[in-house]
């Protein structure tokens, strides 16, 4: 490798990493938060069988899963101003990513909720819990650990998909790499460097997932107690 390329890689590293930390990660987290809430609501209106809303949820999921993310991004950023709705690039990206992933997370939550045995709901109702209480106290706490790996999977996908925001003028990790690549005429080196930084971010997320999954198993502590007692 020539000295020049090494020099470019070293000097560009922090230039790419900083927008990665300042833009890509906040964009990922904000979009995921939106998709989490949206997914939860879209799943609950379906399992609770709320007429009208259930139909809306199915329609929403159909549209957002059935059209490309890049097209949704363009509609929101370039299209909506025609209707008088003008958004900055960053909020437009959050909205597009959040609404898109919301459709996927809705299905994750729905299948997790459906996996909880009917008997749990029946027992809750027989001790006097109403439907919202049953959801909050019994169903969702059991559904969440089931949904968790798939949700995290979607989070890692989202981290990488945020690179699409470069196409609507968000100055994030990939946009910066593109700019430096154009300036230095070293696309191979720069895009590989960007890939390595994405890989580092997603590796961190994977570690976080492993750590959280251990925390999520609600009976771990007591299991050890029993094991000790029996030993």
């Amino acid at each position, binding site marked *: 490798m020539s000295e020049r390329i090494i020099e470019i890689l070293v000097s560009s590293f922090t230039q790419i990493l900083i927008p990665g930390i300042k833009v890509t990660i906040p964009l990922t987290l904000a979009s995921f938060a939106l998709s989490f809430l949206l997914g939860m609501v879209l799943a609950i209106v379906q399992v609770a069988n709320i007429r009208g809303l259930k139909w809306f949820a199915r329609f929403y999921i159909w549209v957002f899963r059935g059209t490309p993310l890049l097209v949704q991004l363009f509609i929101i950023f370039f299209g909506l101003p025609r209707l008088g709705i003008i958004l900055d690039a960053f909020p437009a990206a959050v909205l597009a990513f959040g609404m898109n992933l919301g459709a996927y997370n809705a299905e994750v939550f729905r299948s997790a909720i459906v996996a909880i045995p009917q008997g749990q709901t029946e027992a809750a109702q027989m001790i006097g819990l109403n439907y919202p209480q049953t959801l909050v106290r019994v169903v969702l706490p059991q559904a969440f650990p089931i949904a968790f790996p798939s949700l995290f999977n979607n989070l890692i996908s989202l981290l990488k998909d945020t690179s699409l925001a470069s196409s609507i003028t968000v100055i994030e990790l990939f946009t910066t790499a593109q700019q430096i690549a154009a300036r230095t005429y070293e696309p191979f080196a720069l895009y590989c460097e960007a890939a390595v930084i994405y890989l580092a971010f997603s590796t961190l997320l994977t570690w976080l997932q492993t750590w959280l999954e251990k925390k999520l198993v609600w009976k771990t502590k*007591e299991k050890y107690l029993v094991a000790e007692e029996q030993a």
Partner: protein
Amino acid sequence: MLEVKNLHKSFGTNEVLKGIDFQIDKGEVVAIIGPSGSGKTTLLRCISFLEKVDAGEITFGELHHDMAHITQREIRRIRFDMAFVFQSFNLFRNMTALGNVMEGLVTARKVHREDARKTALEMLRKVGMEDRAMYYPDQLSGGQQQRVAIARAIAQNPQVILFDEPTSALDPELTEEVLDVMRTLAKEGTTMAVVTHEMRFAMDVASRVVFMEGGVVVEEGPSKRVFLEPKEERTRQFLRRAYDAE
């Protein structure tokens, strides 16, 4: 105290309950027996509105309702004084034994946490599960889980407890510990309706027996009388087979 009349229930084209009359008085223990598929479990599930009823009337204390046209609110009112013990226990898997017993008190009945905790521990003591209060359901044996489920039921201070084959999912050696708890409750005058295959338990503990087959009540009466001198040929056949099995 609890009475249902002319109860009809079909699953699709299969009519499971063909006009059942059933009643239970305060302090009574009624055993509901009969072959599989006779509608015993469906009867209990209809009484507690876990199944939607096609037709029928219910009188429960002061309350009287057309069971086919009852609102969710009225159902909750009825369930307030009714408890259900499931064949598969259905303990909340995300809560400890103590949490399971406290849940209805704290969330539904708005009992203060500390009071609920005291009540719950007392109920767990009653079923001999106090030392397992902090265990999660999947750390308990089936018999222990069912005892916790019974503690959860009695903690609600219900007028009547419906037991749906409470020992059918248990190994034979675990059955007795659950039946013992139920015997104690019966002695204390708890009103109970028990769907069961435990004939000895039904004969010893129940004050009255209802024999069901094919969605109708074939015979009912004081348990000694039904067991020792059944009037109907079908009852006689069923009991003979049940004794042979035991």
